[in-house]
């Protein structure tokens, strides 16, 4: 795409992003808002592609639109089982906020956007740290600059982020009811044997597994990585559980918890071993590639399990 057609595409994309965003916040029906939010995420992922940030595009599609969308749909589904004291179903219609609150939030959001736009336009062109990353790529153990930054140059951020994800799951589980502790996570699954769900549950996982593992493997040289691959693997695992082909694990299972902490633990372990050898989280160039693959593999496992369990949520509240 060059010249006028590229400009036309970008303008239409920008309009679609704004339109989907506008619908997501103005639609009064909760489910509709979530659908527009997912659509918005897909358009934003395409925008990242247009900007040449393929890793960000993959992450936005997998996590921003995909996983967050599923979490929100799950939240809507759970809300629809709750009724307010007045007997209204909570999920059907959101209460329209008073005009004053709407005006105030419009003014605040508008002025923040305006100020940000002004700040953005006043900034000089900058390549950031692109040159510094390129200069050190050869000794980083990865040919993909994004992976080099995430696991090597700024591995400490990524390690802590994987811990944040774990903390979110611990927080979610701490919201379970006391008497549900020890039960299987999530709502009870109903899949008819031989039905559509069960068929898909057998058909899709091999392809999903292949895609997920490929994304992690490719991440060391091409766009991809633990977060994107982990999301695909989480979807595979969820599908198998929803099809009733594998039991949903119990929250008290020590094996399950070991999988959840494997990623941060391996990453931190390699970091501490590095500290003993002189550099905390240092990856010596000779071993950097296998070390990055080890860290990515462990992280993928933990991310996949954590994301799937975040979607499943706490045990079914109905007895």
């Amino acid at each position, binding site marked *: 795409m060059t010249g006028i057609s590229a400009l036309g595409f970008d303008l239409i994309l920008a309009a679609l992003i704004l339109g989907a965003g506008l619908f997501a916040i103005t639609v009064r029906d909760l489910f509709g808002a979530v659908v527009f939010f997912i659509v918005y995420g897909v358009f934003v992922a395409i925008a990242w592609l247009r900007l040449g940030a393929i890793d960000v595009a993959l992450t936005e599609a997998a996590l921003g639109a995909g996983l967050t969308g599923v979490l929100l749909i799950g939240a809507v589904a759970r809300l629809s089982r709750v009724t307010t004291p007045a007997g209204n179903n909570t999920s059907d219609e959101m209460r329209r906020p008073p005009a004053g609150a709407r005006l105030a939030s419009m003014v605040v959001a508008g002025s923040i956007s305006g*100020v*940000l736009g*002004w*700040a*953005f336009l*006043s*900034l*000089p062109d*900058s390549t*950031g*740290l692109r040159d*510094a*990353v390129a200069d*050190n790529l050869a000794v980083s153990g990865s040919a993909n600059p994004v992976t080099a930054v995430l696991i*090597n*140059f*700024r*591995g*400490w*951020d990524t390690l*802590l*982020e994987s*811990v*944040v994800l*774990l*903390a*979110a799951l*611990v*927080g979610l*589980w*701490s*919201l*379970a*009811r*006391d008497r*549900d*502790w*020890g039960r299987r996570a999530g709502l009870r699954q109903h899949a008819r044997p031989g039905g559509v769900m069960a068929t898909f549950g057998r058909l899709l996982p091999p392809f999903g597994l292949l895609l997920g593992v490929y994304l992690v493997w490719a991440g060391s040289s091409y766009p991809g990585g633990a977060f994107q691959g982990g999301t695909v693997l989480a979807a595979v695992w969820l599908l198998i559980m929803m099809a009733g082909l594998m039991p949903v694990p119990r929250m*008290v299972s*020590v094996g399950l*918890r*070991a999988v*959840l*902490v494997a990623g*941060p*633990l391996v990453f*931190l372990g390699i*970091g*501490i071993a*590095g*500290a*003993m050898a*002189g*550099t*905390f*989280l*240092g*990856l010596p160039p000779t071993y950097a590639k296998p070390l990055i693959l080890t860290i990515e593999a462990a992280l993928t496992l933990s991310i996949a399990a954590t994301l799937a369990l975040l979607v499943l949520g706490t045990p079914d509240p109905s007895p």
Partner: protein
Amino acid sequence: MILSLALVALVAVPLLAALLAVVVPRRGALIALLGVAGIATALVVLVPALVRQGVLSLSIGGWNAPLGITLRLDGLGLAFLSMVATVMAAVLVSARPQFAARAGSGETRSQWAFWPLALLLWSALNVAFLSRDLFNLYVALELLTVAAVALVAIEGKAGSLAAGLRYMMFALAGSLAYLLGVALLYAGHGTLDLTLLAAQGIGSGRSGGTAAADLIAAGLITAGLAVKTALFPFHAWLPPAHSGAPAPASAMLSALVPKASFLILIRLWFEALPELASPVLLTLLGALGAAAVLFGSVLALRQSRLKLIVAYSTVAQIGYLFLVFPLAGGDSFAQPWAAGAWTGAVFQALSHGLAKAAMFLCAGVWIIAVGHDRLDGMRGLATATPMTAFAFALAAVSLVGLPPSGGFTAKYLMLTSAFASGQVVWGAVLVVGGLLSAAYLYRPLALAFAKADTPTFAPVSRRLQLVPLLLALAAITLGLASQTPFSLIQIGRPASAVEGLE
């Protein structure tokens, strides 16, 4: 070698302990104690090293900033790390009766969740005190928020769930503002490292044509951190969240969590961007702090539940911290009184942490004894639990700012610099705030020491009563032996504003 290992241990030990506490059932309390031992050892190694050879730095992964992330231990950070370690040790010991697994019974929900959450909170605090990288600090704040929100809601009651959700909304809005500001700073200056940002002299006119973006970025970061510190008028989430949690969790939330975002604010305005600090902005921060002191104190006076009084007192005590900006920020940093105000604010943060944790643990003891925390049930408690009453009184001495406590040293330093600089208004805020805090803390104390006709209280173990007493004594000791922490805090104290006057 041993020093860099000790520095790594400060962040790695609580993380490792948290991961273990997730996996191993029924052993959370033991793992937490091992974590305390690890951190204590690291601090014992690091304190003399810092005094001997000054600031310690460590480039993670061997990558120097701006490409990599730097951890830097200065006196300021070490003082906060030590205060947090003291409070965490006390909290983790006090939490055992409620959250340690009982012999012969299976794992329960809150007995599992409490330990990893507390240890993750500790990890996040330590990263926030050591990291020099603005994005790494963002990740630390996110970890802190997630763990803190879950601790607010850990009792699973409808009220604490609502308070936790409200806290999360505020905190996430703050995170978003902070992250936007950090992204703008990075776009303008190509680095996230506080030391490298300081070297660019942002705001001095020699940093290129990014003045508008810099001001907006700093404003967004400051607003985000102010929300997370619960500075007035962003304090509405704090009292229900801090008073609804179980006592050990309240102690962590109120004494420690706001200190992380406050320390980042100090590092931002005194170390990274001192020349950007305009008098208007500094006065605004001071005015919001003064409003917090008055508003929080008046509301604390009007509460009828002990934990709400203590929680509103946090709103007021956080207000004092922000007086450091007009007293020592910007151009006045080169003045002789600035060092006093800056050190006073640090003393205030440290002594508030110790005293506030002691108070919430006292409240926990009394809730066990009485069954609730309404003031009308407190009559005669001093006879039944004299050690706790004494601890509460000592903590109150420090919060009010009476000699010879850490709170006194803090307010004395800030008051003298307020008068030395001729900014009498801030001095008046300190005096009025002290009087108001005496008033709102007198109410529960007077009731506890009042004679009761038929006091029937549940017994409370001595160990549970001893812990808050030790914390309160630590707050007093901070004032009695203020010389050592005073000189420790000065190690690596920023001097960048002085260069700006050349």
